């Protein structure tokens, strides 16, 4: 009956308009607009770090590099779910529905959330914070020429396959870390780049970089970019044979060439 009643329709329509307006206002007040972060000093970053260590580090790690056990993402690189400060704020404030990323308690002050945003920003390598001695354009010449880096590394789809893709290395490493990997590449080698030697049942040997290993198998890529997959119960043995295939450049490049190369590599980012 009431579907035919014009008064019901009018009052119902008015209710919906009021509800829609209320929801719009609520949603605006519940999320941050991109008006800039007013809590962005060094002190704010330290306050944000304190909150992070207490509330967030269990999943994201003490160093915010993500949790292998929890699956929480690395916060020191560009965040896939938020492109600006307001986006990060909104994730912290509202959580990510349907995931283990819960919202902060409702009574958490806005200032605390912004300080957390400031701390997370401070974890990423902002080029503006670095005054590097080298020249990126000269470094590019060293990369392509004397350094012969492209024989092993790719940048934007061009180059070799025997080292990490460097297209966005500036987002992932700060200049000091890049310099260390040039002068002392054996210091830390990710398991992905370990060289493995596999001895097959017939005694033949295959060496290559460790792409992945699990309980029952190991997969490697050899010098010729051949992909191999071995079942552990069908080989004689396997072992790690050397720390790093990356040559050290401390002796072969001058100090200024290394500075240039660092400046070039640090400039490699998504926006470039």
């Amino acid at each position, binding site marked *: 009956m009431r579907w035919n009643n014009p008064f019901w329709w009018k009052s119902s329509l008015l209710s919906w308009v009021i509800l829609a307006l209320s929801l719009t206002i609520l949603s605006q007040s519940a999320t941050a607009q991109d008006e800039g972060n007013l809590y962005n000093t060094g002190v704010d970053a330290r306050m944000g770090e304190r909150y992070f*260590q*207490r*509330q967030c*580090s*269990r*999943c994201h*790690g*003490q*160093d915010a590099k993500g949790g*292998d*056990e*929890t*699956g929480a993402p690395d916060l020191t690189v560009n965040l896939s779910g938020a492109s600006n400060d307001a986006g990060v704020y909104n994730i912290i404030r509202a*959580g990510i529905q*349907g*995931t*283990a990323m*819960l*919202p902060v*308690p*409702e009574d958490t002050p806005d200032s605390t959330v912004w300080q957390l945003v400031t701390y997370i920003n401070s974890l990423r390598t902002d080029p503006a914070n670095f005054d590097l001695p080298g020249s990126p354009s000269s470094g590019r010449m060293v990369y392509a020429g004397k350094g012969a880096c492209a024989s092993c590394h790719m940048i934007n789809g061009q180059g070799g396959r025997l080292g990490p893709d460097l297209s966005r290395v500036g987002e992932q490493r700060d200049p000091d870390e890049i310099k260390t990997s040039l002068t002392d590449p054996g210091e830390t080698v*990710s*398991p992905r780049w370990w060289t493995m030697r596999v001895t097959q049942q017939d005694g033949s040997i295959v060496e290559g970089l460790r792409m992945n*290993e*699990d*309980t*029952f198998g190991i997969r490697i890529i050899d010098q010729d970019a051949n992909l191999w997959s071995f079942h552990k*119960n069908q080989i004689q043995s396997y072992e790690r044979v050397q720390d790093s295939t990356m040559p050290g450049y401390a002796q072969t490049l001058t100090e200024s060439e290394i500075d240039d190369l660092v400046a070039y590599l640090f400039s490699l980012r998504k926006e470039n």
Partner: protein
Amino acid sequence: MKQLAILLLLFTFGSLSLAQELREGPVTPAFTPVSWERLVNAVDEPENWLMYSSTLDSQRHSGLNQVNTANVTELEFKWAYQIPEIDRAETTPLVVDGIMFITEAPSNIVAVDAVTGRQYWRYDHELPDDLRICCGRNNRGVAILGETLFMSTLDAHLVALDARTGNVRWDVEVADYAKGYSKTAAPLIVKDKVITGIAGGEFGIRGFIDAYDAQTGELAWRTYTIAGPGNPDVSSWSDDSWETGGGASWITGSYDVELNLIYWGTGNPGPDWNGDLRLGDNLYSDSALALNGDTGELEWYFQFTPHDVHDWDAIQVPILADIQYQGRERKVMMWANRNAFYYTIDRETGKFLLGNPYALQTWATGLDSDGRPIRVPGTTPTYEGVVVSPSIGGGTNWWSPSYSPQTGLFYVNAFDGEQKFFKRDEDYEEGQRFTGGGGQYIEPIDTYNSAIRAIDPSTGDIAWEFPIQPRTGAGILTTAGGLLFSGSVDGFFYALDASDGSELWHKSLGQRVHSAPMSFAVDGKQYVTVAAGNVVFTFGLPE
């Protein structure tokens, strides 16, 4: 002609798939009520999996032997159930007379036909947005008595559901979630009571173990896991630190019918990594508790890690068995602790019988004659960080171990990790994390060893090990078919020969196995089920 061929093809494949779906003989109704007597004698009906750890002694040993060392290589996929909420499934399903009850993240449950994985009903528990949970949105299982299921929820409620329909019979608040309490573990039925623990050890709670009347949901008794006023053991806490002392009870315990004792593990003292404000042994954190089955009164305790500052909860399922020890049969409890030591304890008295490291550890030179650790100086967390083994995750964790009466061996998933442990000054604030520090790996996770280790409980010696790469987080099932089933973080589900650890079968399930396998039978056919990622997989032999 072409149409006829298609029809024939459809008919042929239709008949084949029907043949796979149909059971032999007439269909009979599934499910009959689960009495306390059935739970006591669960070992006599191996076709069902009636409680979280299969039997009250928690041996996780299935009496089924249709799948065995001779034919396990023939295991094939039967069905998968996709949990709609994307998260890490840690469930051990129950199976009662052909119906499987699967718990899901965050606090939901579904009842399915155990042969096909198809749904009867589901229950989605309504949760507040601002949960206070430590380590993910988990639910590990349910308990059943009569026609009622009992489930813990993340907002620290205990819910009773009609097992035939999923309708709510009662729903009680166990504790205030806003203060940091939550619940993830399957309850344990003892007689007519639902025994259940609490989580929240990282939020400065005071832990307890509760018993609720299964019919009404009324609280029958509560035993605090942290000594308080009126208990002389409160002197093991400096000042008022017992008030925020942690001691969560977030995994399911066991029960000895003859001794009428409930056995339950307790978690870390709070704050986890800064012990400066809670000097003393911090009783009864990191302990095995033996409670009277009727009153909940504490009969004895055994503290594995006095004054823990590394977050090594004694949150492991206690395994009970009668074994030969030094020439005579002893009623023992077997316990591979997060602190990397394995213990055999007399479960009548709580007396320590033996203990050995089963995983890499650098914090103790050994155990004294009472089982108390002899600590290595300089292993307490500092502001700058100190490297200690095992890691925060421990030599093992909550992952269910198993004991096989066939082999007489105890099986545990072990991790030889290390971490840099930090301490931090922190004041307690209600509902906020209260951990006082943390830990960080110093090497890539792939550099550490993991293994299934088989331990002789009469000596504490490791009988064999099967290496896992890179790491494990799954529980273990043993069977009368001579098998050991488990999983790995790299997404494998596998079967070993329980007698010597030799590899017999494995299958990649594509996502980490963070649950414990279980086995059941319907219409005379044995199945094995495990959750990986957010999918529940069931395997069986070919038709």
